[in-house]
C-alpha cells in the first residue's frame, strides 16, 4: 500500500513529523517499509523550453536544439522523436546525476556536435518505464522552475507492508484512523452527504439468484452529460506518486477511491451498454477483453456483470474494454457493489488476474460504507466532469452487519502480559471505531466496525489494545523452569543424527545440505517409482521429485566440484529420503560420496584413489556411532542396482537392511555425465534399533594378565571365495580365545594356481586363565587349518 504524506493529511489533522508518523504506523502493525522522497534526486532538473529544433548536420535521426532555462540557452543534441520547437521539457545540466543510470551527465560530442545538456524521458527520471520520447510538459509550465516542485514530486511516498487481515488499511482513510487512535491527531470529516438524484436511472440492475452469494448487494446510479477529459493535476500527481498511470477523469476517480477509501468501484459507458445490467455467474464459453487488454476465457462460475450483449465486467476484479469510458463518453453508470472475498479469490486465482480491486475485495471491503462511497464518487464526478446524477438504484440487500464480541478487560493482562487501565482500553477501541459497552459484570460487549472482519474474539481485542498502547510497554519476563539443571532436549534418534554428522566430519568429510527434491531422471536412477512423490508445480525442471536416496544430489555436487577443478571430494549429508508421501514413507539417512583421491600424492606416499573400502569404512563407522557393534552387522553382496554389482554391499541387521555402500554403477555415472570412479554409502538412521542399554554403567572389563600369542597362516582357495568366510571360520574355532583375525596379504599369480588366490592371515589368541603351552598352540593351529579346509581353503605348502 502506497500513499503520499499530503494525501494522508487530507484525512488527518496532525502536526506530527514524517518520521514520527512512520514510526507510529510501524509500531501499530502497519510496517512502513520505505519512504520514497524523489525530491532530492530530482532537485537539479528544471523546466526548459525548446527554442529551436533543426536537423543534426551529421545524423538523420538526431535533432539539434537550442534550449532555454530562462537563465541560459544551451545547445542540445536529442534523439527523441517528439522533440520540436516550442515544447516545454525537463532539462538536465552537465554534471547532473541521472536517476536511471546513476551517472553524472558528461559534456560530449555526438556525431561531431557538442551537446550541453539533456532533455529527459520519464524512464531517465525513474518516473515510469516510458522511454518512447522526452517528457512534454503543458505549455504553461513555468520555465526555470524546479521540475520536482512543479510536478508535485516533492511529496514523500510511504510504502506500508499490509498484513492480509487489514483490508481497511488498503485505503488511506484506514491508515489515518490507526494514526488517530495512536494519538497522532484528529480525523477530518468526509464530504459524503447525499447528492440528490434528479431523475430515475435508465439503467436498471438485478442480481441473479445463483450470484447472490458472490454478490449480495449492488448499487449504482446514472450520471448524464459528463465531459470526460484529463483529471486535475493534484489527482494525476497522486496517482503518479503511487505508480498508477492517469487515464481520464472518470477512470482516475475510481482508481483514486480504491486507494483513498479502499473502495473499488467501476464506471460503465452507458452509450456502449445494451440494456439491463445483471450480476450473474459466467457460463462456459464466455470471455472478456479486460481493461488490462488481455482476453480471459472465464469458464463457468465467476461472478460477472453482464448486459444483453454478454459479460462486461469481472465483478470486483476488473472491468471490460468494450464498455469502458473514453473521451467521447457522455453518460455513465457508476457501480458500487459488494463481492464475496472467497468468490473473488477463487476467480482471480483461476484466471490469474491481479488487480487493485481484487486485492481489496479478497481482504473484505467495508460493506457499510457502500452508500457513502457512492455519494463521494458522485460528487467527484460532478466536480470534475459535470453532469446530472440519477437516483441511486440498488439490487440485493444490505445484510445486517452488526457484530459484537464480549471481552474481559483483564485479558489484556492475563494474555497480553500488561495491565492497561479500562479507560485507556476504551479510548483506544473507540478511536479504532469499535463500540465498547460495559456489561453489569464488568466485561465489555464490543461492537465491531464492518471494516474489521478479522476481529472474532477476545484475543483480537487484546491485540487491538496492545498494538495501539504499545507492544514495547509489555514487560519482558524470563522463563522459569521446574528444575535448575538442564534436561536433555534431544531424543535418542536426534542424538544419533547429531553424532553421525560429527563423526563423518571427523572422518574428513564435508557436511552438505542439498534440496529434498531432485530431477526426475536422478530419482529414477535411485529407485524412485511412487507417482505420489512428484511435485505438481515444481519450481524448475530440475527440482521435480522428492528424493528416494541421499546419494543422487551429492553425486551431482561432486560433479560440480570436479568441474570447478576440485576433483577430490568427500561430501556427506544427513537428511530425509522419501518412499511414499505418507509420514511413515519418510526416513532419515546419513549418505556420503567420495571421489578422486582418498590419499593424495606426497613426498612420502603415492596417491590412492577412493575405493569401495573407503565407503564401507564410513558406513560401518556411522553404524558404530549409532551404537551398533560390528558383530551385529552383516555384510551381504546384494546392494541396490545403482551400485557396481561386484564392488558393493548391503548392511544388514538380521534380515533388516540398514544401509549400503559401494562403487557407483558406471552406467549411473554415465547417465549423470560424471567422469571417474565414485564411491558412496547410505545408512538409514531411522531403521536402526534404539540402544537397549539399561543404566549408564558399562559392562565389567576383564583384562587378561597372560601374553597374547600371534600366529600367521597362508591359505590357498578359489579366487572367488570371500575372505569373510575364511575369517568367520577361523573365529569359529574358539570364540573366546581368538581375539582378532586380520588379513595382511592377498596374492594371485604363479605358485598358487590358475583361478586361485592366497590369503595371509594373522590370528591373535588371548588366553584368559593361563599362558598357552606350545602343545596348546599347536593344537589350535591344527584346528584352524581344519576349519579353513572345511570352508574351502587349504594351508599353503
Amino acid at each position, binding site marked *: 500500500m502506497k500513499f503520499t504524506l499530503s494525501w494522508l493529511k487530507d484525512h488527518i489533522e496532525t502536526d506530527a513529523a514524517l518520521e514520527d508518523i512512520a514510526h507510529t504506523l510501524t509500531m501499530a502493525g502497519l510496517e512502513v517499509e520505505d519512504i520514497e522522497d524523489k525530491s532530492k534526486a530530482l532537485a537539479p532538473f528544471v523546466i526548459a523550453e525548446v527554442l529551436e529544433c533543426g536537423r543534426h548536420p551529421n545524423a538523420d535521426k538526431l535533432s539539434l536544439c537550442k534550449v532555454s532555462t530562462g537563465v541560459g540557452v544551451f545547445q542540445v543534441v536529442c534523439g527523441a522523436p517528439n522533440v520540436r520547437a516550442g515544447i516545454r521539457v525537463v532539462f538536465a545540466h552537465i554534471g547532473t546525476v541521472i536517476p536511471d543510470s546513476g551517472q553524472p551527465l558528461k559534456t560530449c560530442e555526438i556525431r561531431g556536435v557538442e551537446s550541453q545538456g539533456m532533455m529527459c524521458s520519464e524512464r531517465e527520471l525513474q518516473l515510469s518505464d516510458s522511454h518512447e520520447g522526452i517528457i512534454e510538459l503543458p505549455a504553461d509550465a513555468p520555465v526555470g522552475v524546479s521540475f520536482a516542485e512543479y510536478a508535485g514530486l516533492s511529496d514523500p511516498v510511504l510504502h506500508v507492508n499490509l498484513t492480509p487481515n487489514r483490508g481497511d488499511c488498503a485505503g488511506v482513510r484506514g491508515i489515518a484512523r490507526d494514526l488517530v487512535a495512536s494519538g497522532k491527531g484528529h480525523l477530518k470529516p468526509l464530504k459524503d452527504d447525499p447528492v440528490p438524484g434528479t431523475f430515475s436511472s435508465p439503467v436498471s440492475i438485478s442480481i441473479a439468484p445463483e450470484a447472490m452469494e458472490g454478490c449480495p448487494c449492488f448499487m449504482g446510479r446514472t450520471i448524464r452529460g459528463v465531459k470526460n477529459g484529463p483529471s486535475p493535476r493534484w489527482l494525476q500527481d497522486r496517482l503518479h506518486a503511487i505508480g498508477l498511470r492517469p487515464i481520464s477523469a472518470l477512470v482516475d476517480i475510481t482508481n483514486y477511491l480504491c486507494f483513498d477509501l479502499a473502495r473499488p468501484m467501476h464506471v460503465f459507458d452507458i452509450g456502449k451498454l445494451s440494456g439491463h445490467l445483471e450480476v450473474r455467474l459466467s457460463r462456459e464459453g464466455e470471455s472478456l477483453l479486460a481493461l488490462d487488454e488481455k482476453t480471459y476465457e472465464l469458464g463457468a462460475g465467476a461472478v460477472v456483470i453482464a448486459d444483453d450483449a454478454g459479460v462486461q465486467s469481472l465483478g470486483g476484479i476488473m472491468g471490460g474494454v468494450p464498455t469502458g469510458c473514453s473521451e467521447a463518453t457522455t453518460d455513465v453508470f457508476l457501480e458500487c457493489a459488494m463481492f464475496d472475498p472467497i468468490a473473488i479469490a477463487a476467480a482471480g486465482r483461476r484466471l490469474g488476474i491481479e488487480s487493485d480491486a481484487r486485492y481489496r475485495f479478497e481482504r473484505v471491503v467495508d460493506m457499510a460504507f457502500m452508500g457513502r462511497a457512492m455519494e463521494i464518487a458522485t460528487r467527484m464526478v460532478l466536480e470534475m466532469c459535470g453532469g446530472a446524477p440519477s437516483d441511486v438504484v440498488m439490487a440485493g440487500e444490505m445484510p445486517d452487519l452488526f457484530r459484537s464480541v464480549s471481552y474481559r478487560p483483564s485479558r489484556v493482562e492475563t494474555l497480553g502480559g500488561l495491565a492497561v487501565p479500562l479507560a485507556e482500553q476504551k479510548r483506544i477501541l473507540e478511536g479504532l471505531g469499535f463500540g465498547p459497552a460495559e456489561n453489569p459484570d464488568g466485561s465489555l460487549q464490543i461492537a465491531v466496525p464492518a471494516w474489521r472482519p478479522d476481529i472474532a474474539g477476545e484475543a483480537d481485542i487484546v491485540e487491538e489494545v*496492545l498494538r495501539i498502547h504499545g507492544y*514495547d510497554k509489555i514487560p519482558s519476563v524470563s522463563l522459569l*523452569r521446574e528444575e535448575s539443571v*538442564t534436561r536433555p532436549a534431544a531424543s535418542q534418534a536426534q542424538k544419533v543424527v547429531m553424532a553421525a554428522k560429527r563423526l563423518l566430519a571427523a572422518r574428513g568429510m*564435508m557436511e552438505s545440505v542439498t534440496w529434498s527434491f531432485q530431477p526426475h531422471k536422478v530419482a529414477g536412477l535411485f529407485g524412485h517409482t511412487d507417482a505420489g512423490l512428484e511435485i505438481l508445480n515444481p519450481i524448475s525442471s530440475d527440482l521435480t521429485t522428492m528424493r528416494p536416496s541421499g546419494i543422487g544430489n551429492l553425486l551431482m555436487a561432486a560433479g560440480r566440484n570436479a568441474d570447478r577443478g576440485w576433483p577430490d571430494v568427500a561430501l556427506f549429508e544427513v537428511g530425509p529420503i522419501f518412499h511414499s508421501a505418507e509420514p511413515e514413507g519418510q526416513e532419515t539417512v546419513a549418505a556420503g560420496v567420495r571421489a578422486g583421491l582418498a590419499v593424495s600424492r606426497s613426498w612420502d606416499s603415492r596417491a590412492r584413489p577412493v575405493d569401495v573400502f573407503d565407503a564401507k569404512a564410513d558406513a560401518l563407522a556411522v553404524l558404530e556411532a549409532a551404537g551398533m557393534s560390528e558383530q551385529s552387522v552383516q555384510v551381504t553382496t546384494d546392494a541396490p542396482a545403482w551400485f557396481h554389482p561386484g564392488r558393493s554391499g548391503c548392511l544388514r541387521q538380521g534380515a533388516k537392511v540398514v544401509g549400503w555402500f559401494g562403487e557407483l554403477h558406471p552406467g549411473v555415472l554415465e547417465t549423470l555425465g560424471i567422469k571417474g570412479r565414485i564411491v558412496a554409502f547410505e545408512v538409514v538412521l531411522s531403521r536402526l534399533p534404539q540402544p537397549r542399554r539399561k543404566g549408564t554403567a558399562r559392562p565389567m572389563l576383564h583384562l587378561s594378565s597372560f601374553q597374547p600369542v600371534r600366529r600367521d597362516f597362508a591359505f590357498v582357495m578359489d579366487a572367488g571365495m570371500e575372505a569373510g568366510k575364511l575369517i568367520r571360520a577361523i573365529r569359529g574355532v574358539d570364540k573366546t580365545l581368538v581375539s582378532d583375525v586380520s588379513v595382511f596379504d592377498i596374492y594371485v599369480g604363479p605358485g598358487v594356481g590358475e583361478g586361485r588366490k592366497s590369503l595371509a592371515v594373522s590370528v591373535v589368541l588371548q588366553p584368559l586363565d593361563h599362558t598357552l603351552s606350545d602343545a596348546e598352540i599347536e593344537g589350535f593351529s591344527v584346528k584352524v587349518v581344519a576349519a579353513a579346509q572345511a570352508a574351502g581353503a587349504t594351508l599353503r605348502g
Partner: protein
Amino acid sequence: MDNLEQLVEDILKGIAGAADMAALEEIRVAALGKKGSLTGLMKTLGGMDGEARKVAGQALNVAKDRVSEALDMRTDDLRQAAMAARLAGEKMDISLPVRPETAGRIHPLTQATEEVMAIFAEMGFSVAEGPDIEDDFHNFEALNIPADHPARQMQATFFMPPGADGKPKVLRTHTSPVQVRTMEQSQPPLRVICPGRTYRYDSDATHAPMFSQCEALWIDESVTMAQLKGCIMDFLRAFFGISDLPVRFRPSFFPFTEPSAEVDIGCSRKNGELKLGAGGDWLEVMGCGMVNAKVLQYGGIDPNRYQGFALGMGLERLAMLKYGIPDLRTFFECDLRWLKHYGFVPLDIPNVALGISG
C-alpha cells in the same frame, strides 16, 4: 717395576690415541687383560718381600686405577662422538609439509540449529519433529488458514498429488504443523521446539525453494506475551552473544497467533556494512504470537483452560547474520571451498556451558 712410570705413560698415550672402541679394547686387553702388561707386573708381586711388595703393590694399584679411569673417559668420548656422527647422518628436512590429511567440516546450518537447540534446552524445551510432506489439515487448516484465505498467498506452496484419501498434500510451508502434531499427541504443559526443512515456491537472491525453520511452542495455563518477550529476548541475546542486543516487537498478523508480532533486532548499516547491536536500524528475524484459540482447539486442547505462545524463525537467516554469510543460495551449493570456509570443525559442539558464540 722400574719402568712402571714409563709403561703407564705409554698406555695412557695409546688410550688417548685410540680411534675407535676396537682399538681401545685392544689397549685394555694389552694392559689389563690376563696377559696384559700391568697384569704381568701384578703377578711379580708374589716374589717380593714384605716392604718392597707393599711399595710396589701400591704403585701398581695407582697405575691400574689411572689406566682404568683413562679407559672409561675415552670410552665416553668415543660413544659421544659416535652418537653425534649418527645424529648428523639422520638429519631430515623438517621444512617439508606434513603428510596430507583431510579435515571435514560441519555445515553452518547444522551448527546454527544445534546452537538454537542448546539455548532452548536451557529454557526447558525439548525437540519435536514431523514429516516434510504434510496434509492440508496440518499445514493450513489446523493453523487457522482456511482455503481461499489471503494468508495462503503469504506462503507460495508446493503441491503433491493427493493421497489415497483424496485429500491434497503439500510440502510443508513452515514447521508450524509440528506444533499441531505435538498438541494432538500430548496435553499441556508443552514446551517444544521444532527445527526442520520447509519449502516454498520461491527462488531468487534472497529466497530458496527449500530452507529451514525452527518453531518454539509453549502451552500452559497462564503463559503471557510477557514471557514470549522474555523467551525471545533471552534467546536472541544468547544466540548472537550480544548481551545488550536491542530487540523490538512489532504488531503483525499470522493466522495461527493472536496477538501476533514480528521481532526485529538492532543493527547498523553504516558504509554498507551490517553490524548487529545498537545502531539505530532494525532487522527482522522472526515472527511470534499467542497461539490462536482455534489452533488449540484443532490440536485437541481446551482453549478456555490453556494458552501459550509460538514463535518461528528462519535458521539460514540466523546463520547468515551470526556468521556473516552474505548469500542464502550458497548454503545449498556444496562448494568445497565454501564449506571449508564457513564450516565448523566437528568437535566444536554447541554447548551453553562452554559458550556458544565463538
